[in-house]
């Protein structure tokens, strides 16, 4: 029996209409399935629609047409309250610029997604500490983001993404601001999450070392996804 498809994209399009009347097809008729526990990486040039694709999968943006089904839920048909619950329980985001709350400490940043849940405060803190320990930041839980290196900040962001044990981890250029060694550590963490916890990972990255961690590599250009990766892009990405 095959694995359960956690993500299903059916004819997914996202069109932006400019004031000039021009339309931009950021995502154009994408069909894609991602089975449970797969580490999928999407590469492609800037402006090809990769981030928009992640936002659609994560329920941060709504498609113009087509369907986004995540863990059996049709994201495009969810109400506002259901979308909040979906983002809280089903997906974890890791952004290129970390996007930590600058005034909160590492442990408070990781606790933040748990705050709106019914979990008691003590348990939330306990879980946040555990996750920070998991990403190797045991001794730095009370530090502010500014007091952490960029690699450490991204580890906090990953711990935060793990907080609610999401089905899907969405990584938007997670190593974009990191050096190769740190970037590899981050990708390793995400890879382990995918394999050990059965989490499905969709990563958008330009990292050259991605092949070590990914199960499947797709190419995106002008809003469309293909398995055929141009030789030049492949050479640039995977060396």
């Amino acid at each position, binding site marked *: 029996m095959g694995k359960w498809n956690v993500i299903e994209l059916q004819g997914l399009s996202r069109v932006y209409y400019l004031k000039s009347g021009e339309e931009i097809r950021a995502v154009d008729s994408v069909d894609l399935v991602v089975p449970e526990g797969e580490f999928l990486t999407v590469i492609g040039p800037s402006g090809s629609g990769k981030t928009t694709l992640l*936002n659609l999968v*994560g329920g*941060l*943006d709504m498609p113009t047409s087509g369907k986004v089904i995540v863990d059996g839920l049709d994201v495009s048909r969810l109400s*506002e*309250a259901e979308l*909040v*619950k979906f*983002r*809280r*329980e089903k997906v974890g*985001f890791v*952004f290129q610029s970390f*996007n*930590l*709350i*600058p*005034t*909160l400490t590492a442990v*408070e940043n990781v*606790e*933040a*997604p748990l*705050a*709106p849940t019914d979990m008691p*405060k003590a348990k939330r803190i306990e879980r946040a500490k555990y996750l920070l320990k998991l990403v190797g930041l045991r001794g730095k839980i009370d530090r502010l983001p500014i007091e952490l290196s960029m690699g450490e900040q991204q580890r906090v962001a990953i711990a*935060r993404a793990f*907080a*609610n044990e999401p089905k899907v981890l969405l990584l938007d250029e997670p190593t974009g601001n990191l050096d190769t060694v740190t970037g590899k550590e981050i990708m390793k963490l995400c890879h382990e999450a995918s394999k050990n916890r059965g989490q499905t990972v969709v990563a958008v990255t330009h990292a050259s070392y991605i092949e070590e961690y990914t199960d499947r590599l797709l190419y995106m250009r002008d809003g469309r996804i293909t398995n055929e990766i141009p030789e030049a892009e492949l050479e640039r990405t995977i060396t």
Partner: protein
Amino acid sequence: MVLITYIYALKELKRRKYRTVINITGFVIVVATLVALVTTARGWEAATAEPLKDIGTDMIMIYSAPVVPSGTGCYIANHLFSFPFNQSNIAEISEIEGVNRAVPVLMHRMGAVVFTGIDPRETKTNAVLPGNVVEGRYLTSEDGDVVLVDREYARLNNLTVGSEVRYMKGMYEIVGLVDVDAANILKSHIYVNLPVGQKGLPDDNIGLVNIALISVSDPRKVDDISETLTRRWLGATPIAASDLAATTSGVITIGEEMAWNVSFTLAVVAVLFTIRSQLAAVAERSREIGILKAIGWSKSDVMIQMFIESALQGAIGGVVGCVVGCGFAWYFLSTIGRVSSIDPTILVAGFCVALVSGIAAGLYPSWRVAKLTPMEALRTV
């Protein structure tokens, strides 16, 4: 949820120190103004009403005085013979609706000495009351050629209980020394039984008085009664506590109602200012708001966050404003020599005004935050 939003709110306020201080200062000004003005107004009102309260009356009607007196008995005495007022008029005053009681007083002056004739049966409302006696006894209605003398006047003239003092054409025995507050508008040197005082007037003035001390059933109707008195007895001058306040110079007089109005006007300004400031904060923090929404915070969670920040600023401003307001109230009241404890209700009201203003100031920015989609917010750099 609540705890992290508080921690987050406090840290945000700390991060934006300058803006926070400005916002809080706005609330401090509102509350300090409210506490200082209302307390001062009340203290002032009490201070001006005291001379009347001391003699157990709500208002004094002087028959003849063409202008409001300056606050001393001498002025009233100076106008005694201008417009004589028959004692029978006192009974008529008593019958005016809203008047509980009218007590006759005759006050006049001989040289530098002010004499006052009183009805000693009136022991609750009178120019001098039994409680003012510090030595000897109070007058009785049977007393003839005896007087009460102001203690200070007695000291300056070496007079004691039992010694005699000259009044009009005769000598009178001092039966008591009295201590009357300097603020008492009817303070005199010598007090005699009313018929004795009237006997001392020229023949055609027998039975006359020139002052009525009036107690009213409802102090709020003092103005109405005052108007009735003026209409019926042209040339009569009713004096209430507010009139005394109006004639006192050197201190700004301010009513409590005006104090509240000024404070509410300032509160509106503070709210508008804070709204503007919070909107700027929303703009600056759009990306953070996007992150919070992306990690599963709902609109209401983010709105509550903004609310707490505004309310915290209001609450801090409220507490500091109460302290500052107390300081100003203490200073203002000390200038009129009436430092008293501040009504806790005013402090609670001041704090509530700041808190409600803070919450009100958070409404619109919170609504703006709620409207932002995670995508819009995250796109902001």
